[in-house]
């Protein structure tokens, strides 16, 4: 049970990390697009 919790938490952390990275990228690209127009 604890192992499962551990793996799940690691997965969650990886996911949140990935998400924030992509989100920041999205924001940056949007800013670039606004400038370009």
């Amino acid at each position, binding site marked *: 049970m604890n*192992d*499962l*919790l551990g*793996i*799940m938490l690691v*997965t*969650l952390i990886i*996911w*949140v990390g990935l*998400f924030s990275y*992509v*989100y920041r*990228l*999205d924001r940056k*690209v949007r800013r*670039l*697009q606004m400038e*370009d127009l």
Partner: protein
Amino acid sequence: MSSRLRVSVVLPWLLLLWMSLIIWAAFFYAPAAAGFQGQSSRIVFFHVPTAWVATLAFLVSCIASIRYLRTRDVKDDIRAETASSLGLLFAVLATVTGSIFARIMWGSFWNWDPRETSITFLLLIYAAYFALRAAVADPERRATLAAVYSILAFVTVPFLVFVVPRIYWSLHPDTIINTQAKIKMDSRMFQVLMGSLAGFTGLAAWLYTIRCRVESIRRRRQQEVL
């Protein structure tokens, strides 16, 4: 702010919530499947969607390629290239997760069962696609040749996916059957799997739009430099 902009701001957060829920559900809501080693069946919730996305990306790339040949619009070439690069990424993920799963379940990392062969084929096609793109200097010719290759590859896929497995069984009667197809899935497992599928598709679609936007800006800047 226009409504489209507002929606595109909300969707990523929804995706965050959804995937977090799926991750929790994959470990605690869905039961561990019988007939699998311990908890190893849970990798299915991550493996199947990546394979699905890899195939979907291939389809998108081919459609974009056909459109490019018709319209010669640079945007379609961007779509084809982006879809292929995402497809490659997810195909690699699918191969790795599948391989790990195969090791846990059946003891060896690779068995050349039909599914594994299909994903290898997809990997080879993507690699070839990018090798071709790298080898052509002129942008329009690059786009055209890549599009043609994409279509050629697409035409070959039905044969690999549908015809080979039927013949394959007679060749290797002891080949390990891909149990995901055969086992009747517990309804909870099925729910989580579908949810994960939707989540991964959403994630891929998001990555796809970002990548397309970046690429279009990059190309425009390149044009300006020239």
